[in-house]
């Protein structure tokens, strides 16, 4: 530290170059190690191909749900540069509300009716869950984030953590501790059998629905005037406002879109996992955030692909590496760390994200 500035700078760049080489070597070593491990395990265990296919399908279902939630993170981040830590709870509230809507529908006997009735009822249930999430998301923005728009970045993060805890424990107080269990209607409780591969109906529905919702979002963002306003605000808030974009309205709409997707994810996750309780949004929320970062936060296709990749890795990883399934979270986070080491702005992160990160 006593050397002259010039020398120190040289040392600094040397350090950086050495570091880069070191990380590259490390990357190659890790990839080789993983390949070696996968081949040896694959040869030793000899799982049938159908096993891998059904694991991959599970992964895609999980990835679809993560993607819906990850989009909420990424949309908000793209515009406000803040991590909406309470987004997982927004999803959970969609799930809880969906549960009550389902109870209501079951009490009326809609779930035993002819299939068009059941389909319409299921869509209604999802819509109710989405609406509840939208209400919570917008309220959250109004009360906990909007007053902090000008604050340093850590401040809204702490506010979001507070909001997350508040929502979790309010749900605990209002609806009680015991988990609420979804009862699937007969129409969607079975599954499809293709050879040795079993595809549960819920899984297929979740995957298709999330793809449809993502396409809808993509259409809104790329093809509508509203989407153009959103992209403009994400690019440069002050210039957008000078061009006549109502920034506040755009931010509210962003929260609405993100929360609606999260609400849909909450309801679908409820059907898939069959239980929802006050803290069931936390871990999926964390995973979805991981997925958003994996793809390059602020980047919409990045969030989708990041989530699908994360879901796949989580489903296949433990068996492929021959380690217990309890380590699937370790694999997810390790993957994240590794990808960020080699691509510090995520898989699809561009120069744009580097500027903002």
């Amino acid at each position, binding site marked *: 530290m006593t050397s002259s500035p010039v020398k120190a700078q040289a040392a600094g760049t040397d350090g950086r170059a050495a570091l880069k080489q070191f990380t590259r070597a490390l990357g190659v070593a890790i990839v080789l190690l993983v390949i070696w491990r996968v081949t040896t395990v694959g040869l030793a265990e000899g799982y049938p191909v159908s096993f891998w296919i059904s694991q991959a399908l599970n992964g895609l279902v999980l990835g679809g749900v993560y993607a819906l939630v990850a989009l909420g993170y990424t949309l908000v981040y793209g515009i406000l540069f803040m991590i909406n830590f309470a987004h997982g709870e927004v999803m959970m509230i969609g799930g809880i509300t969906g549960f009550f809507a389902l109870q209501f529908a079951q009490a009326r006997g809609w779930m035993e009716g002819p299939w068009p009735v059941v389909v319409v009822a299921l869509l209604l249930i999802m819509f109710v869950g989405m609406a509840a999430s939208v209400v919570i998301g917008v309220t959250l923005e109004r009360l906990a984030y909007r007053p902090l*728009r000008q604050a*340093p970045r850590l401040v809204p993060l*702490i506010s979001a953590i507070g909001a997350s805890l508040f929502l979790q424990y309010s749900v605990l107080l209002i*609806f*009680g501790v015991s988990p609420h269990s979804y009862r699937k209607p007969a129409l969607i409780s079975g599954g499809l059998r293709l050879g040795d591969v079993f595809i549960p109906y819920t899984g297929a529905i979740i995957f298709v629905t999330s793809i449809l919702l993502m396409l809808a979002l993509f259409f809104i963002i790329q093809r509508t005037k509203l989407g153009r306003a959103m992209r403009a605000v994400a690019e440069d808030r002050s210039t957008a406002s000078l061009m006549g974009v109502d920034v*506040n309205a755009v931010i509210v709409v962003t929260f609405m879109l993100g929360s609606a997707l999260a609400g849909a994810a909450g309801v679908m996750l409820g059907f898939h996992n069959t239980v929802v309780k006050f803290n069931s949004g936390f871990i999926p929320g964390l995973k979805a955030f991981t997925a958003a970062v994996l793809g390059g936060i602020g980047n919409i296709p990045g969030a989708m692909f990041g989530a699908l990749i994360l879901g796949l890795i989580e489903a296949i990883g433990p068996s492929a590496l021959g380690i217990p399934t*309890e380590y699937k979270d370790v694999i997810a986070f390790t993957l994240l760390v590794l990808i*960020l080491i080699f691509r510090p702005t995520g898989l699809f992160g561009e120069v744009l994200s580097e500027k*903002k990160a």
Partner: protein
Amino acid sequence: MPLETATGAVRTGLIAFAFLSYLILIGIPGRIGGPALPVLALIAALFFWLKLRRESNEPSREATGQRQDSFDDKPGWEIGPRAASKGSRLRDLLHTHSGTAPILYGLLAGLTTGLLIAIVSGIFAAAMGNGIAIQPVLDKIVPLNVAALIGVSPGQIAQSDVSFIRFIFQVLLFAGAGVLAGLTAAGGGYGLKQAAFLDRLTTHLSGATLTSAGRFAGMALPFVLLAYIAWLGLPGVTAFGTNEGTVRLLLTLIATGSGLFTLRLSRPGREQMAVAVLLGLGVFSMPFILDQFQNSVMGLVFIFVMMGLGLNIVVGYAGLLDLGYVAFFAIGAYTYAFLSAPFSSPYISGLLILLGISPESPLLGYWMALPVAMLTAAVGGILLGIPVLRLRGDYLAIVTLGFGEIIRLFMLNLGELTNGPRGILEISQPALFGHTPVDVTFGLLSSQGWIFLLALVSSALVAFVATRLNESRLGRAWFAMQEDEDVAEATGVHLVRTKLLAFAIGATFAGMAGQLYAARQINIFPENFSLFVSIDALALIIVGGIGSPAGIVLGALALKGLPEVLRGVDEYRIVTFAALLVIMMIVRPDGILPSARRRIQSPDPEEAGAAGEPELREEDPGLRENGEALAKGAGVREEDP
């Protein structure tokens, strides 16, 4: 009364109803019991009054360059005729019609709230009277709660024996609350004067411009409290008729916190020295005065002070957002556990037998284990630091978060090494020259008191080291790096070394804290090291005031100490804490005691706290430009001397 004001009043009533129904849903009326209805009405009145006060105050606040109320967030370009007219119309009414308009406003808002409350409680009561159970859906809507809300006995609800008059009374009560609020707001401008007085008072309190008499009275507070706490400890003495441990705990927390303010209020030089010595004596005598329970809470508070000081180096000084700080805490705790508990993993005991040491007895004492734990944690810090050197901002946050989770999952799943979820039991206690002071001091020092004392000494040490580091060359390098990495590198800061040192030193302190935590808990489990520990540590440095050691102590007292005092209302502890966290961030985002460096940077400490301008400058130049263009309030502030 114009239609616009009327709709505004109804909206205010609706918002009040939404808030009150939240309180009803979480079961507050049932908890309060008899006086529940008047209490709710008072809350509504307070809300109406705040709303009236703000709406009538807004234009005058803008004129004086005060912070614009951020709830109504009207960025610069929107301050057009529409925005201005909305606030001023009510103000005109307030002044021209002297009195009647706000009262009508309050009446209307109160009627709205009261009617809705009456309808909802009527529905609940009717459902329960007809034997429909609401509880499976809404957990807290039980007869007790609804009865308290209507003001009858639970039995009457069950027999659906509630007279209609009750509901009319409810409506009238809330309408009365609204009128009360209106009267207070309108009373010949009295409300406005009072509001101005309150504003001035808050400015004075935080600006440390108390008069000298008030100053000395304030400075005496911690010592008076300490004396009172000591007196309470005498046998047979009770506080307010009860010898509640929590009362004493609360007083202890207040005494410690106010001590810090005293230190800040005292004049630098001899006076400050004297206060510091006296305070030190007072605080260090606490472990001997307090009982086991209070000592254990205070011990935890100061363990978190150490954590906060360490995390502050990483986040506050070096500007690296670390959400996985619990990892180093866990490493410290588990290292000590391995070295001192009878359970050793098959691996470790095998190693010990190889080395010819009996695995039954603890391997190292507390003091010998201390450098090992610190070193292990530091190595962990460097190992985390190397891969994340290139990451910035939120990417760094998520990777560190992942690292914290990885460590916890390993501790949970590596059964052979860490005993898995069953944890490591019977960790030995720290001793001094072969004796624990608990034996030597003839019961004056309880075992938890000893831990508290150790925590105090260690956190004082850590605080000293951290402060000196911050003022050293390294501290300036951290600061430069936090401001702008590229500029810092260009001016000769060795980024790799500076970052790694921040991670390593921060981790070392966490390791120390973790070791003491393991000794305090005696048994540790992976569940003790969840993500929430990181969040707690981060929240406490931000609540206290990032970069300021005194603020960190205050933050730890508030975040780890107060919840223990609130144990009596255990159910509502976390929601209260969470709501306070959000409110705190909105009202005072720089923390309770902001650091000196941050205060120096901005011309006016109060306003800097509100806008966070210097932080924006530090973290994101692009965002700052946006912020400046947007922040109308900030623009006014800069012109205003």
